[in-house]
């Protein structure tokens, strides 16, 4: 009688202790304690499955609980069994040692497999040296506690699943690039993803509900999604998605700018054509009149000036037409790099007049095989950048050289300025598309990237050397074209 009461009391203790268990590890140590009275029973060994082909094993190594994941065959038998050969082999395989006498207790968990089958998803193993009554006693002892163990394990595994799902959700939430935040109905932040914390943490809460948001050079469009969870119609939560439209807007601006430039180029072409006729008239008439004037007179000299001025205009217009032409594409020609420079400089006059220009053009054969108008764009872009970097005064050096490299010769064009230089932290980016440190209208971030493309198209390369507060130099190297005579 007293024995039965004691048994009940012990059991209810155990059940109470079990209800407080928060992890499978705790469950293991509780079990270990519980069976202490059975001297010849080893520490418990718990196996449970969360999917059909993966098995988790919890066991003691000394006083430490070890968790081991094993892929393996799962002994699918729902009966309590003693010294089962299959079970011993299974454990021997996992642990690499023979097992002695074994009590195997399958636990009936409510968790279901993905195909909704109730499966034996956990097993308790006890290695022991019990015999006779002691063995019966132990089996009963465990049998009493089986339901409680099953319930707790069920709960723990379910929580585990939930935790994993929550973790997965959290990681997904944080993995989204755009800032996302969940508000409650009072516009208090409930959850915010990483991007939000990183980018919009310090934004005033009323701005978080505007249509667009400008923060740290980034532009966001805001989409709000009310969430209605309860029965009543008003939303309980609001999800705000801040779509980063910075790049999209920049591309759009760029496209408009490109179209403008194209239109401008067209217009410049038309104007150039229109100017050509009167200009030719001026030059021709000056030539006619020079013939009639007596050499040595002022009129003769002045007419000469007029004729030369007209000639200069003709050259500029010719270059402008070539520069803005798109018909010439895919026509590589032999041309000296000096010629390219000479053709481009007049187009830059208004940009560089305030600088000291040092022109050091080589006398050697510096012919290259390029599309002249494209190379002109390169020279144009780089000199324009140099001018912008120098501001009001400075020295612009344009130098051409020919070097021997291996068996071949290389033609170099070096454009250097005495501007502010390029910060080392952005030096790797200046050739990137749309990278610019200039405000809209001043820079597009296309100049260098296009230049690099063009130069590489002609089997050349472009490098930059720069020192802060001293200046920058851009070196364009192209293979020398053989056929021409310098």
């Amino acid at each position, binding site marked *: 009688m007293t024995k039965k009461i004691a048994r009940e009391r012990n059991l209810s203790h155990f059940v109470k202790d079990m209800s407080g268990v928060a992890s499978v590890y705790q469950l293991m140590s509780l079990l270990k304690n519980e069976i202490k009275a059975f001297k010849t029973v080893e520490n418990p060994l718990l196996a449970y499955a969360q999917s059909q082909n993966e098995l988790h094993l919890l066991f003691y190594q000394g006083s430490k609980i070890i968790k081991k994941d094993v892929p393996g065959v799962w002994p699918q038998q729902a009966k309590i069994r003693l010294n089962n050969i299959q079970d011993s082999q299974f454990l021997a395989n996992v642990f690499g040692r023979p097992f002695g006498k074994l009590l195997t207790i399958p636990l009936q968990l409510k968790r279901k497999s993905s195909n909704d089958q109730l499966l034996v998803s956990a097993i308790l193993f006890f290695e022991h040296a019990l015999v006779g009554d002691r063995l019966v006693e132990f089996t009963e002892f465990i049998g009493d506690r089986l339901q409680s163990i099953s319930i707790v394990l069920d709960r723990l595994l379910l929580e585990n699943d939930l935790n994993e799902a929550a973790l997965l959700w959290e990681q997904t939430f944080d993995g989204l690039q755009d800032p996302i935040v969940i508000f409650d109905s009072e516009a208090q932040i409930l959850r915010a993803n990483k991007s939000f914390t990183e980018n919009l943490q310090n934004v005033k809460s009323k701005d978080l509900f505007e249509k667009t948001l400008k923060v740290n050079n980034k532009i966001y469009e805001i989409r709000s999604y009310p969430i209605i969870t309860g029965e009543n119609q008003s939303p309980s939560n609001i999800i705000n998605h801040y779509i980063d439209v910075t790049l999209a807007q920049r591309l759009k601006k760029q496209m408009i700018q490109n179209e403008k430039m194209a239109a401008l180029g067209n217009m410049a072409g038309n104007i150039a054509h229109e100017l050509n006729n009167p200009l*030719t008239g001026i030059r021709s*008439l000056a*030539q*006619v009149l020079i013939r009639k004037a007596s050499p040595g007179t002022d009129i003769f000299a002045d007419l000469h000036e007029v004729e030369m001025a007209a000639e200069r205009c003709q050259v500029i217009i010719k270059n402008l037409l070539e520069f803005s032409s798109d*018909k010439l594409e895919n026509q590589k020609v032999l041309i000296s790099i000096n010629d390219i420079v000479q053709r481009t400089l007049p187009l830059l006059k208004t940009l560089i007049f305030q600088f000291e220009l040092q022109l050091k053009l080589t006398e050697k054969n510096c012919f290259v095989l390029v599309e002249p108008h494209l190379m002109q764009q390169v020279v144009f872009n780089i000199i324009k950048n140099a001018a912008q970097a120098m501001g009001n005064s400075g020295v612009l050096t344009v130098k051409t050289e020919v070097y021997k490299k291996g068996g071949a010769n290389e033609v170099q064009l070096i454009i250097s300025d005495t501007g502010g230089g390029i910060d080392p932290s952005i030096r790797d980016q200046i050739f990137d598309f749309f990278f610019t440190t200039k405000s809209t209208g001043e820079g597009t971030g296309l100049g260098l990237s296009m230049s690099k493309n063009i130069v590489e198209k002609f089997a050349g390369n472009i490098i930059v050397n720069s020192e802060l507060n001293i200046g920058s130099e851009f070196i364009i190297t192209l293979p020398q074209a053989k056929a021409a005579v310098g």
Partner: protein
Amino acid sequence: MKVLIVDDEPLIRRSLVRAFANYGHVVFEADDGVKGLEIWQAEAPDIILLDILMPGLTGPQVLDQIENRGNAKIILMSAYAGEYNLKKANELGADMFIPKPFTDIFAVVQIAENLMVVN
């Protein structure tokens, strides 16, 4: 020799007229193709300088309508040199092609005179 200049651009006409006159040639001018053809019939010039792109009749159209050409030489001129060249001009029945803009007006006179000398 008698020179006819057909060009819609007044300054081009004027400078050509002056340059040829300077060398003692008799010069006629027309600012479009129709007038050019009238002068051709009335004066029978030795050489015609014909602009290709003109409102109304184009240079090649004018060339097409010239009858009884005899020994007369025809020079086509154009600013859109890309589309025209000597070969094309020859195919159209002209004797010479001069791209615009001119860099030396007297070189044009020289070319015209040379054409006359050849035959």
